[in-house]
């Protein structure tokens, strides 16, 4: 009986980390900087990577879920995949001024708008 059950378990396709999940994100900001919050539950502080190349922002987060020992799952929805988000930026940002903070599974990235891209007020003389 117990061997039968085990066989069934082995047939379930296991997912590799080669596939990524696109995380949910929000954007807000003002004239000087934009803030992008990327929701990536299960990613620890040291497991994020962030890069800006030309106008592309790439965010990756390696998800690590501790698997419980023994027992069985009664219900499963949480996926083990890591996260990858690629965004095309419409605004030129100052790459040296980019800051990122992670808290409660959310990575908040501050992207300062490059000086030349900020709106200029022109005085009428």
């Amino acid at each position, binding site marked *: 009986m117990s061997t039968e059950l085990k066989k069934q378990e082995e047939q379930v*396709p296991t*997912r590799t980390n080669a596939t990524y999940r696109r*995380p949910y994100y929000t954007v807000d900001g003002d004239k000087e900087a934009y803030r992008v919050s990327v929701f990536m539950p299960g990613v*620890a502080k040291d497991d994020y990577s962030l890069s800006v190349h030309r106008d592309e922002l790439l965010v990756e987060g390696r998800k690590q879920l501790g698997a419980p020992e023994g027992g069985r*799952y009664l*219900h499963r929805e949480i996926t083990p995949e890591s996260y*990858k988000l690629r965004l095309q930026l*419409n*605004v030129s940002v100052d790459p040296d001024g980019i800051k990122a903070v992670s808290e*409660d599974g959310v990575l908040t990235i501050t992207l300062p708008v490059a000086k030349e891209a900020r709106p200029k007020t022109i005085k009428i003389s």
Partner: protein
Amino acid sequence: MRLIKHDSFFNDPWTDLDRLFETSFPELYQWTPLRQGGRARSVPMDVHETEGERTVRMEIPGVRKKDIELELENSVLSVRAKREEETDAGPQSIELTRSVTVGDDIDADKIKANLDNGILTVVLPKQEQAKPKQITVG
């Protein structure tokens, strides 16, 4: 001005292609029917059981410890969580809720909950009399 250029399939075809493929052939993928990623209000959940306890895990990124309400009533565990999202239209309060029947054999006084990187883990130990007992044949 908008920060992100038109966000579409063409920006990031591979992850979306993956998803398209997985929703087209759900039988190939264990997770597909339950995939809820990329949505604001979904709370994906795992329930795991061992002889001594049941463990409920939920993804609630962006929620602070103080903004979580946990309740066990009539063998139903309810989670109510709130988070603030900054959007272009100003701050928005998002409420996340999820309930699950955890069984009537739980020792309510020994429940422990922990929040780690946006994942809430609730450990519900079973009552002593509910645990399986070994009976030796004399």
